[in-house]
């Protein structure tokens, strides 16, 4: 059936609870709108769900409610002015968008980044990974009704946010990584507080593992739900914990090592069954690994400048195009920039991992119940700033 017809035949679409018209009721079973304002859509996503009893026959995500045209806005700003815009993409992990964009610009203008700045970038991005995964884990708690898990995870996230606030003054939109380096050097004593956090965070992770992932009800709710086949994950372009939960060994930090990642010793946690539980578990273990990387990065960090000297105030990369990608908390975050040699980007494209992962929702949700739909959506961990751009 044509989905545009479905949407127009419903009453009260906004607010999420439209009762479909009589004819649709008899012909199609129940059609409900989950979202755009719904506690479990993690932003503003609307999912048109065709139900047969409680079983989802078809789930169709409708996105774009947060589309701000950031790619178009970038074309109207100078190269440096685009960095704050990238903050607004993945607002749960702004450091990644900053870094991916800066890497593409640096590749295009052939800027070499000081080593200390590379270490700082790795350090903040691994902290960001923890913050982002805590959000995802807390959300899977909230989706299954475990409000306490949500609070515990957010407490850990808050510690990271406080560290970032001390670092660059902002809690969510950092604008910290800039083409050529990072905006400011680390505050005094900051690395000690990070090490202290990494030490405590491991204990908190173990506690969360026992509280939530070890819980019989949580296991019953997460295991076997939304099973993603590894080959399907690759074909659909899934990345990050969504792909790794299915056992796809795809982590750009290992696979296409960038920055100083080859110097660190860390593992890539992989799932085996590809269900919601494995995805959640992957995120938990990745936070463990991030703690390891953080400690190594701090111990190896050299002294020196944090910004390339002699950068022009107004960047003017040579005409051409460049692509670069990093492993964000959600997967492969790529940035494709095209320059025509002027002070503004000719075209900026953000390859957002959440967008590709979310496309899997209809596939994963089919045949599960309405309760599982929100769990599956949560396990894909979409951030709608990034999906809609």
């Amino acid at each position, binding site marked *: 059936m044509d989905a*545009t017809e479905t949407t127009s035949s419903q009453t009260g679409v906004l607010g999420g609870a439209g009762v479909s018209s009589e004819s649709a009721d008899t012909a199609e079973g129940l059609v409900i709108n989950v979202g755009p304002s719904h506690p479990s859509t993690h932003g503003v996503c609307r999912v048109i769900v065709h139900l047969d009893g409680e079983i989802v026959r078809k789930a169709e995500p409708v*996105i*774009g409610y947060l*589309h701000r*045209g950031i*790619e*178009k806005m970038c074309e*109207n*700003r*100078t190269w440096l*002015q685009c960095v704050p815009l990238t903050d607004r993409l993945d607002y749960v992990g702004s450091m990644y968008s900053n870094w991916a964009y800066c890497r593409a610009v640096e*590749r*295009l203008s052939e800027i070499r980044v000081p080593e200390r700045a590379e270490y700082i970038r790795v350090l903040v991005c691994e902290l960001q990974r923890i913050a982002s995964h805590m959000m995802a884990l807390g959300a899977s708690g909230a989706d299954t009704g475990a409000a306490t898990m949500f609070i515990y995870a957010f407490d850990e996230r808050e510690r990271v946010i406080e560290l970032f606030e001390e670092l660059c003054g902002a809690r969510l939109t950092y604008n910290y990584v800039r083409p050529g380096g990072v905006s400011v050097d680390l505050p005094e004593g900051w690395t000690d507080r990070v090490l202290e956090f990494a030490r405590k965070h491991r204990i908190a992770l173990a506690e969360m593992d026992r509280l939530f992932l070890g819980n019989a009800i949580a296991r019953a709710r997460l295991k076997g739900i939304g099973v993603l086949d590894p080959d*399907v994950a*690759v*074909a*659909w*372009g899934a990345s990050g914990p969504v792909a790794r939960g299915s056992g*796809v*060994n*795809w982590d750009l930090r290992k*696979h*296409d090592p960038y920055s100083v990642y080859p110097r660190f010793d860390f593992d890539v946690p992989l799932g085996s069954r590809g269900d919601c539980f494995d995805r959640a578990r992957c995120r938990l273990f990745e936070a463990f690994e991030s703690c390891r990387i953080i400690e190594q990065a701090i111990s190896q960090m050299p002294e020196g400048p944090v910004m390339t000297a002699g950068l022009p105030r107004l960047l003017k990369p040579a005409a*051409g*195009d*460049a*692509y670069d*990608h990093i492993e964000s908390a959600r997967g*492969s975050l*790529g940035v*494709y920039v*095209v320059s025509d040699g002027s*002070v503004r980007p*000719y*075209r900026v*494209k953000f*390859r957002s991992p959440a*967008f*590709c992962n*979310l*496309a899997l929702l209809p596939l994963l949700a089919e045949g599960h119940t309405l309760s599982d739909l929100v769990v599956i959506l949560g396990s894909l961990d979409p951030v709608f700033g990034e999906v*809609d*751009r």
Partner: protein
Amino acid sequence: MNGDQLREHLCDHYPYLCPMFSVEFGDGVLAVRREGLREAASNLRDLGFDRLGMLTAVDRVDHLEMVYRLTSRSMTVGIFIKCRLDPSEATVPSLVGLWPAALWQEREVYDLFGIVFEGHPDLRRILLPDDWEGHPLRKDYQDPGMIRRPDYI
């Protein structure tokens, strides 16, 4: 594997693709014609490029350019496929059959550039409302709300 090794690998298996291949910024670039896009993509997939990482378009004013980026689990190198399109006839074969990842990404390009993908099962707008007029990422797109920032910044 770097770009030059990729060239050898490619020329060994699919010699007809060899003249279209070049290396830019360490990545392989394959410039294909619209008619040969699907076959080239299919051949690259058989070569081991199993992921369609990114799919987008660039409006070069006199022509449109489709940009595909393929990555592979077995090779560390990525490859671009670039395909020039005439703006008056902006259609391109859909790659949904090869990679389902193209399903939403092609919808996005259709939405923002107005490029029609032949054979796409569900070509609708995805980010913008269904009744939106125009395709905003085209360079000739006009909207009264859009203000050109002055050049002196």
